[in-house]
């Protein structure tokens, strides 16, 4: 952590960046995003096991961008998000300094995108272990049981769209749910409409989800909606042998194809 603070101070003092996006401790003790613009305040930065939020979501937020060039404290999911955002032309590699942190909390030397790519490539890119277990459990259920499970979970959804807002890859300025010609997704919250929303969200993240689990964590009513995108991340790897967010030249699974893509259900 001291390395991190020192590096942050150095970056701010030398005016290499204008803002450090990192974590600080809130008044109730939870870790939360911090935007440090003054080197004197760099001491507020923390990094420990509480720091789970995917900070990459702020890379596309206009007011954060307005602060100037930024350095971002980046765990593996943040780095993968950065790769996706570069590949989808939302950010430029030159405008960001990556303060990589390894899983044990030590500061990594991420000099450039190539180094970051190398780091990502040697990391475990599957879903987080605890989520893998949940997925295994759900996949064991019968189709009817799964249908009932998701109905029950999604009936809780209040359509606050925290899942969408927390996701670094849901950066659209207008979401499909805000389209009303036609009204693809009902405005009101009801189980069926909620389900359509979550299907839409998962499909839009198919091949793009980097398995950070932020959507599920953000949900105020505790719907494990991250399992939907994570299941598809698994399937993307099964079918197409790729993990999202591994290269700045990543081509999206659903916008590319191979003539010999295998499937077994089209007659």
């Amino acid at each position, binding site marked *: 952590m001291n390395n991190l603070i020192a590096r942050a101070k150095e970056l701010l003092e030398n005016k290499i960046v204008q803002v450090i996006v990192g974590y600080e401790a*809130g*008044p*109730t003790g*939870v*870790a*939360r*995003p*911090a*935007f440090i613009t003054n080197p004197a305040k760099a001491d507020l930065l923390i990094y420990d096991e509480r720091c789970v*939020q995917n900070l990459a*979501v*702020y890379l596309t*937020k*206009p*007011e*954060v961008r307005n602060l100037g060039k930024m350095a971002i404290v980046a765990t593996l999911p943040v780095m993968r998000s950065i790769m996706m955002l570069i590949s989808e032309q939302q950010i430029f590699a030159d405008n960001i300094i990556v303060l990589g942190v390894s899983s044990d909390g030590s500061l990594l030397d991420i000099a450039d995108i190539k180094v970051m790519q190398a780091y990502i490539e040697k990391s475990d890119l599957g879903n987080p272990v605890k989520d893998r277990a949940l997925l295994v459990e759900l996949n064991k259920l019968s189709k009817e049981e799964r249908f009932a499970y998701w109905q029950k979970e999604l009936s809780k959804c*209040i*359509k*606050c*769209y*925290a899942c*969408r*807002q*927390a996701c670094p890859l849901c950066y659209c*300025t*207008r979401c499909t749910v*805000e389209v009303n010609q036609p*009204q693809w997704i*009902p*405005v*009101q*919250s*009801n189980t069926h409409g909620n389900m359509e929303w979550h299907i839409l969200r998962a499909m839009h993240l198919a091949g793009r989800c980097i398995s950070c689990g932020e959507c599920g*964590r*953000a949900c*105020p*009513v*505790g719907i494990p909606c991250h399992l939907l995108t994570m299941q598809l991340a698994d399937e993307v790897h099964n079918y197409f042998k790729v993990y999202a967010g591994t290269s700045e030249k990543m081509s999206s699974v659903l916008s590319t194809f191979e003539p010999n893509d295998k499937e077994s259900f089209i007659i």
Partner: protein
Amino acid sequence: METSRKLIRKQSLEKLYNQLSATRKVYAPVIADDKQVEFKYNPGFAEVTFEHIRSTLSVKNIAFPKVENLFLYSNGKTESTITDIDLNKIPEVVLWGSHPCDNAAFDALRSIFEWDIKDEFFSKRMEKLVVIGLSCHLSDAYCFCTSVGLAPNSSKGSDILLSPLHNGDYQADILTEKGASIVNSFSELFESTSGEEVVLTTVKQKFDHEKVTSKLNGAFEHPFWVENSLRCIGCGACAYVCPTCACFDIQDETRGKNGKRYRSWDSCGFSMFTLHTSGHNPRNVQSARWRQRIMHKFSYMPDRNQSLGCVGCGRCSSGCPVDMNIAEQLEALQNI
């Protein structure tokens, strides 16, 4: 009406609950499988919790449901017929065990829905609602009722307010006619007060809301808003869990020739909330929307509705995915 105070023994409380729930809809808090506290209709008494700090969602939906049909329509060849909603079908509901902050919120909502003209849906639901509140003997760091003029045992909004006693019995304050009528129907369950002491939590006052209100006047352009909303991701969680947020959207949903017009919860935190057809958006950045949220609750409502728009329940902060702590910010605001 004159308020009165009675005692109800623990066993009698169970009887009261069972008898109420045998004859009408009772909306009471339970702890769900996933540890979330939620209100349910007519759970068994054993399920009902008396030990919760706050439910995940507020109970405002009982008067202001997340979706409310306004009318139904049917399109004919040349003209459409409209069918009104039969408000008389709205059932009587007993809200059981909601805390003083949530109950006080009904007054804040009323100040909006019955401000100039009465919203008949809201009014009808309120008319059919009996609130049996429960004072707080638990609280956490997110609670700040004392900063907004309330307390763990505020009676505002309750028809009957139960307060736990040291020996496990409850003190019942009968506050309204509606409350009295329930007590009268089950008078055998109520006794005279015993003098036993009420167990109450203490909630530290974090700020002076009047000072906040006066500071806000003129703070519209203050850099505070940008600085303190950088981490806000613009979801609607705070508004949807808030007991006093009353914004709604109105939509038509047609299928075939039939359709309905309904209103459903909305949030001023959404980027598209104020988007004009022209493409202009007066609140085009999140800081403006965050400012609106605080201004509305602590400046505009006191000014126009003579009511604070906040009851200090702390849900918006505990439910926020990025720890936008409203009490912390209000505390800071009073010193800008």
